[in-house]
């Protein structure tokens, strides 16, 4: 999977994009967040308050229970502030 970070998530984690292997079937966004947080450092900081993190899979807004597939583009970002 291609994982992308925007705004302060990108700044805290320190990278814009990375590849993450799908570890098993029935793996959802919340599982991915838990695994990323175990890396500590910027990841733990970025995902500390999940209430202010939004996620999109293949450019569509989804919830954290969305099940991921191999090859998905998963983007994490704060609530949007355009317009």
């Amino acid at each position, binding site marked *: 999977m291609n994982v992308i970070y925007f705004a302060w998530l990108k700044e805290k984690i320190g990278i814009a994009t990375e590849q993450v292997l799908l570890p098993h079937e029935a793996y959802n966004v919340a599982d991915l967040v838990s695994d990323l947080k175990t890396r500590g450092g910027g990841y733990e900081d970025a995902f500390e308050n999940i209430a202010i993190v939004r996620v999109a899979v293949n*450019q569509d807004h989804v919830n954290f229970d969305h099940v991921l597939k191999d090859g998905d583009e998963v983007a994490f970002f704060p609530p949007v502030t355009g317009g």
Partner: protein
Amino acid sequence: MIRIQTHDFDVGLETQRMTEAQTAIGGLCTFLGLVRDFTGDKNLERLTLEHYPEMTEKQLENIEQEARRRWDLEEVLIIHRFGDLAVGDKIVFVATAAAHRKDAFESCQFLMDWLKTKAPFWKKEICENEEHWVEAKAQDDDQAHRWDILK
């Protein structure tokens, strides 16, 4: 039509292009969003807008189609800028043209309300000695909820 760009635009020219050579348009409704200084007493130098290009395009195209399903529209134009902007700069423009004003007014508001809560843009304020990301407002969600478009 969706346009995501760094450069400025001319509102008069854009609306003229939408209506010229058209005979079915009876009214055109526009919303122009400007960069305002909401930092209080801090000195706002500029605003930087980050976005997620592929998603912005996909989401805005979807919502243009949704507006066209709900209202009888002849033309739709959405322009959103990204990159560095100063206070007073134009940031977003939504224009809807229809035979009747009700379609034009309502769809213009629908598009703006939707864009505020779903289009992947993030504003960062750059002041003299600090910079920070702008926080989203709950009232934007409430306004979008009126249209029953949030999950």
